[in-house]
């Protein structure tokens, strides 16, 4: 994955709170292989009615930045929600708060989850569609000549800027990991699963507690 520091592009507002990952991508689409692209599934049921007609939400076409309400990406851990955003061309989401798992998934796919003040989110949403420029290094965004800060953890900024991948990062710690596992095996061998005997136990015992 290639890293990035600066981006500038059209921003669209999604003025809702608690946009969960089930809305970002409904579960029924998740068996599709990624290579076919997940962009068409993004916010599918919010964008289209059952009869295939478009619903009344701002068009996402051409958007690179999304501004939304608090708790964006809450709910299911499905990384497919991030794939749908990324495959649709979104590079950054600006919101007052994010679901924890979603934010981690976003960073792992080069999507910036930028946390902004409530008031700023409100204001940006009234200005959208607008053009917003982002600087990850400076943790700032600018629009209409104003510049505002956003919050992003240092580790995440580094990963986004460098396009780092955790598997490579972790490989540098292989020896420590093995040593920790050895120590645990010596001190607490019971941590490893016991070989089950063939008696299948039932679940009822003591369960009325």
């Amino acid at each position, binding site marked *: 994955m290639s890293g990035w520091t600066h981006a500038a592009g059209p921003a669209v507002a999604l003025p809702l709170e608690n946009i969960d990952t089930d809305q970002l991508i409904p579960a029924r689409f998740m068996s599709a292989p990624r290579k076919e692209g997940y962009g068409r599934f993004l916010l599918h049921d919010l964008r289209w009615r059952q009869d295939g007609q478009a619903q009344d939400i701002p068009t996402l076409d051409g958007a690179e930045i999304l501004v939304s309400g608090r708790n964006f990406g809450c709910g299911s*851990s499905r990384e497919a929600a991030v794939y749908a955003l990324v495959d649709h061309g979104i590079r950054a989401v600006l919101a007052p708060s994010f679901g924890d798992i979603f934010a981690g998934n976003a960073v792992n796919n080069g999507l910036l989850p930028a946390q902004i003040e409530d008031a700023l989110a409100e204001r940006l949403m009234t200005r959208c569609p607008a053009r917003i420029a982002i600087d990850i290094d400076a943790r700032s965004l600018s629009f209409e000549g104003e510049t505002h800060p956003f919050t992003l953890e240092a580790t995440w900024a580094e990963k986004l800027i460098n396009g780092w991948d955790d598997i490579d990062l972790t490989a540098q710690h292989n020896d420590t990991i093995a040593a920790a596992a050895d120590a645990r095996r010596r001190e607490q061998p019971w941590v490893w699963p016991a070989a089950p005997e063939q008696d299948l136990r039932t679940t009822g015992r003591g369960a009325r507690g």
Partner: protein
Amino acid sequence: RDDGTSLLSVYRHLVHEVSHHDFAKLEERDLPVAHPELTFGVADHYAPTRGALQEADPSIARMIQTLATNAERHGIRFFGLGDPQRGIVHVMGPEQGLTLPGLLIVCGDSHTSTHGAFGSIGFGIGATEVAHVLATQTVWQRRPKSMRIRVDGRLGPGVGAKDIALGWIARLGADGARGHAIEYAGPAVRGLSMEGRLTLCNLSIEGGARFGMVAPDATTLAYVQGRPFAPKGAAFDAAAEAWSTLTSDTDAAFDREESIEAGEIAPVVTWGTSPEDAAPITATVPDPARADPSRAQRMRAALDYRALSPGRPLEGTPIDQVFIGSCTNARIEDLRLAAAVLSGRRARVPGIVSPGSGLVKAQAEAEGLDRIFTDAGLDWVEAGCSMCVGMNGDRVAPGKRCASTTNRNFRGRQGPGARTHLMSPAMAAAAAVTGALTDVRPMLVGRAA
């Protein structure tokens, strides 16, 4: 790392069918699974609850087959269809003794917080992280802030873990515990069975918490002892000794403390499209006109989606169907509760009862609960995620209102246009009997529950 992120060793990694992207990532890099002996696979999300796999939609059959193939290729123990030990990952993990106190447990599923009921650290991760765990058996995590939720006093009859959970989420918000690890404490939590604690920890994520846990005690040990993959004999004694040290110091300082009086909790139902949209069954549908303006808009949208009018009592809201199941409420105790309400009564609306695992199913049948459900007119089906997420095709039809024991009332979660009301198994059973949201408490009078 100096920024507060640590590399943690994972001791149980559970994978399910939705993890297909993750194995694909591993293959792209041509990496093996580092510790197949600590990795377990199970078919739950797409598992058909009726009929054979061959009759299922080909895309569903393919998902299950892909996991079976990946498990076999990497030497992972796989609980497939037809395996009596198979079940929803967060039901069968504890049941098989895979979940043990003190272990770090991850799964590509947000409700991995469930496993904290044992004093384990369990959290959900995304696909990239799953691939990372498969390849390295480790996970990067930031240290969470700590929060303690104390539940004092005693729960009233017909009130359970689900009501405690929805109650605190309604109070603090769906992101109220964001970035926090929750410890549930207090006499009412101590008094919960393992089943109840699993329900409580399961819902931690719906309040935004990274994970939730209950310190292990005698209830925990009694549950773990003798489970298939749990330590046995001397190993169990050594483990039990280590587990007994896993309690917070009485004077431990938490970043946040909340307390709840158990006696004040009434059965809770949700009215909106987020688990925070919950209220006691005795309350009325909230009025956006009286809410603060930042919430009002979302409330209006939620009520509009649910087709509910502000100000009317929640009790008596008609429903079209019920679903009793999911990793939140499909354990044996949940089914016993629902059966206590349904026994000798008929359901006015159709519904599905899906046990959490093959073993729960067998136990329920041994106790005759299945007949209570079918006599009431509900369908008794196989174990799986089923109508919680609708991946296997069990869906709520557009516009239909479902009384559900699941964990998410998100728009479209149970199917496009579905209107979900979350509640406990007892409350869902009561709703089935009356065909409307109903306070279960009077219906339990004189019944063993």
